[in-house]
């Protein structure tokens, strides 16, 4: 029973600030502190939300964005995972690739957009855009994870005459997996942020970002705010799920920290 109360407390604590903002926003709009022609009131936003729910465009676009993000995330993170492992395992490739990787990493993502449009005018360019951003955190975290494998554990493998391949699958991979998961969590959240940019830079594929962008042109600020709230909400849910997964798979590391 106690744990249920504590959970309820957590939810209330988390909802406290949003509730205050909502109330403040409501009163600011009704007493014209926020001019309604520039910034929509909560009532406008709710009615706008109802409108896009009814004509189906909200879930249509949200769905496109979510699928786009998942494609970019999977492409980027799987590639990133292999790059991270390779850099972590081979000192030669680490020396060879790390400098150029660090240089490329500095390029702001929007700068890739013109090049990506050359690659493809369709969905592929948007997915690649997300994938590039999704790749970095997985590379960095996986690399760190592999580098931080305890030498002690590798010695255990040596005593048992493990081959390199066996050491990799029995020691390096499981031991670095929690770090990879952290990378994946960051990567998914970056992907979700990038989808809006991708849809604005490389238009006409639908999606929540494109919806917001076109609404802005029609001065439907209420729908822009609907988009912002939806993005925040989905992003929060994604992060929450990834955190749970992280806990689940790195139970031994978390408990290790607590007990020592």
């Amino acid at each position, binding site marked *: 029973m106690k744990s249920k109360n504590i959970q309820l407390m957590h939810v209330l604590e988390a909802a406290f600030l949003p509730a205050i903002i909502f109330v403040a926003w409501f009163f600011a709009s009704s007493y014209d502190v926020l001019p309604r022609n520039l910034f929509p009131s909560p009532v406008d936003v709710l009615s706008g939300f109802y409108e896009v729910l009814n004509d189906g465009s909200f879930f249509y676009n949200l769905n496109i964005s979510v699928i786009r993000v998942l494609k970019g995330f999977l492409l980027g993170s799987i590639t990133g995972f292999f790059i991270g492992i390779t850099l972590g395992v081979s000192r030669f490739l680490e020396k060879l690739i790390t400098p150029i990787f660090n240089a490329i990493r500095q390029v702001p993502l929007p700068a890739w957009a013109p090049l990506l449009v050359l690659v493809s005018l369709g969905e592929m360019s948007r997915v690649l855009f997300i994938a590039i951003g999704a790749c970095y955190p997985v590379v960095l975290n996986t690399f760190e994870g592999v580098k931080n494998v305890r030498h*002690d554990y590798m*010695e*255990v493998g*040596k*005593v048992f*005459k493990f081959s390199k391949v066996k050491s990799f699958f*029995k020691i390096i991979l499981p031991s670095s997996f929690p770090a990879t998961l952290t990378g994946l969590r960051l990567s998914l959240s970056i992907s979700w942020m990038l989808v809006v940019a991708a849809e604005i830079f490389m238009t006409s594929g639908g999606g929540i970002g494109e919806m917001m962008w076109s609404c802005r042109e029609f001065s439907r600020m209420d729908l822009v705010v609907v988009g912002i709230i939806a993005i925040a909400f989905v992003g929060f849910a994604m992060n929450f799920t990834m955190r749970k997964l992280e806990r689940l798979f790195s139970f031994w*590391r978390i408990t290790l920290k607590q007990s020592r």
Partner: protein
Amino acid sequence: MKSTGTLAVKNVSKKFKSQETEIHVLDDINLSVKSGEFITIVGLSGCGKTTLLRLIVGLESDYAGDILLDGRKLNGPSLDRGIVFQDHRLFPWLTVEKNVALGIVGKTDAEKKEIVQNHIELVGLKGFEKSYPYQLSGGMSQRAAIARSLVNNPKILLLDEPLGALDALTRMYMHKELERIWKEESITMIMVTHDVDEAVYLSDKIVVMSARPGKLQKIIPVPLARPRDRASIDFAQMKEKVLEEFMLHTEHNFNYSI
């Protein structure tokens, strides 16, 4: 019948080189260990006893002299030598049974299962097969580590202060257990320790080492009958004898003539 585990360490010296300095860790160590013997190496920290053990197991190379196991020169680690480290080094992401199964090679799944079960029972961890290392106490973790090191039936088991981190009572209990395992497996054991009580309780021979560079100071045979009684006079005298090597014994007045 287990094959022999006779170890000969001949004129072994070891230096560690860092950029400018050279540290002489072991200097001309000679030691022979008979099959089935229990040897402890006692010395102050920094005397190179752990290095000697790591040389024997094959984790350190580049030394002068010879180390022979059953007459053959060692070349890197091998499954005929097991080691239990000071920190148990169980893999935290694996259960006890999977940790124990880790080193088994060339067996079918059914055989593997049987070996794991037998060794878990040998070290008294029955019922904890599915536990993770973080759920075990220090003593239980070392038991699991001992089981893991024995699965390939090594000829020699090397123990690097495996009980150092345990509380005094658990340690004494583990001495009994270790002696039982040693007898049941009829295996050669070489243990590094700085606990004189532990050394006298367990060893056939105590090797005393001095530090910087690590030298063999004295080999003291322990001819006491097993199981040994810590409260006996013989036991106390044996301890005294070892402590004398470290100038730590109590000096009795009648030893002096003025």
